[in-house]
């Protein structure tokens, strides 16, 4: 392998090239999934992804327009399932949205006990080198999260921090992981992605991860 190859494959550019490879869709299998999860939780990497999306966006002109069937009704039925919103017609305001959100909240609160028999959720997070694992189990009725960590502990002055990424794509901290087992309380749903990043001791100083994302996996039925 030439010096140039070595530079290309492992130089300081490697994160930026990974972002380009991810945007283009060159990656397969676990590499693709790992890059996708990283783009969700690692702000610096997400910014690189955005830069590449921007650079390559003019290629979108290559996609020709084709007749699209009118699927709007089906789409609306999926976005607004059985909501009374239709009665308001188009342009119903934020106030109605808030009222609806409030009523949904009340409904959830009232019927919360019925969720107690829902199956437990779990996720196994493994880092790239497969030396560090976080076995996560979640009891939905108690909103209790248990994280069992195996592998090397973080260096002095650093902590592992657990994050959840919901449908908005914004990571939210669930807490710092200490020792072999950490118990946390959180409201989680199946399908959300959990991720562990390496942060300064005590956790990220920002609302989002600042350190590298070590492992990520979706929360699924146990």
């Amino acid at each position, binding site marked *: 392998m030439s010096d*140039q*190859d070595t530079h*290309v*494959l492992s130089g300081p*550019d490697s994160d*930026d*090239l990974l972002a*380009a*490879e991810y945007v*283009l*869709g*060159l*990656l*397969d*299998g676990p590499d*693709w*999934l790992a890059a*996708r999860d990283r783009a969700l939780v690692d702000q610096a990497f997400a910014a690189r992804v*955005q830069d590449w*999306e*921007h*650079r*390559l*966006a*003019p*290629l*979108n*002109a*290559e*996609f*020709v*327009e*084709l*007749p*699209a*069937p009118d*699927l*709007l009704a*089906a*789409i*609306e039925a*999926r*976005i*607004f399932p059985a909501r009374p*919103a239709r009665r308001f017609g*188009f*342009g*119903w305001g*934020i106030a109605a*949205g808030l009222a609806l959100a409030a009523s949904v909240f009340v409904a959830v609160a009232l019927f919360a006990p019925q969720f107690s028999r829902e199956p437990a959720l779990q996720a196994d997070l493994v880092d790239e080198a497969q030396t560090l694992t976080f076995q996560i189990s979640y009891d939905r009725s108690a909103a209790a999260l248990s994280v069992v960590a195996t592998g090397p502990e973080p260096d002095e002055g650093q902590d592992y921090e657990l994050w959840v990424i919901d*449908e*908005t*794509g914004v990571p939210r901290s669930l807490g710092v992981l200490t020792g072999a087992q950490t118990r946390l309380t959180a409201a989680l749903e199946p399908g959300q992605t959990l991720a562990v990043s390496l942060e300064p001791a005590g956790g990220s100083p920002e609302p989002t991860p600042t350190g590298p994302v070590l492992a990520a996996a979706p929360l699924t039925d146990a």
Partner: protein
Amino acid sequence: MQDEITRSLLRITQKDRAALNVLYQHAAPKLMGLLMRMLGNKAEAEDALQEVFIRVWDRAAAFDPEKGNGLNWICAVARNLALDRLRSNRVRQVSQQVPVEDVHDLAATGPGPEAQSILRAEMEHVVRCFGELPEDRAAAVKGAYLMGLSYQDLAARYDVPLNTMRTWLRRALISLRECLDR
């Protein structure tokens, strides 16, 4: 001045349901073209089209008009969704049967009817930068972007080892970045 797609996206961040209708009328044909090219199957493309609008509704808050126009943002959402489906092997990629030569004609196709003069200038810049690459590398990069071809697909298509394809394209991407940022 903002275009109709960008405006309706900004209204969708306020959960304005009428804006979804406007967005669909303006963006669905482009997205249908994108999804057909990448997924190569009408039923799959139509199913993905619904999913794109649902994602757009959920994630519109992430759209920043300072960082690009609305059409490019939803194209990125649609490409990501198509890649998700291709990479999770839910879709047999019919589009892979299209010969790579098909993606040589970047300049010939030209911007779509919705493209404005700024977009045309950007396009010319991109064409020039792709023109600086060896022809097969340029086609491979475009094949990935437009058809969702992976390293593996491209290596098979060009009949070179996977690592060779990876090295070629990484060099091509470094040159492209250098040229596009100029």
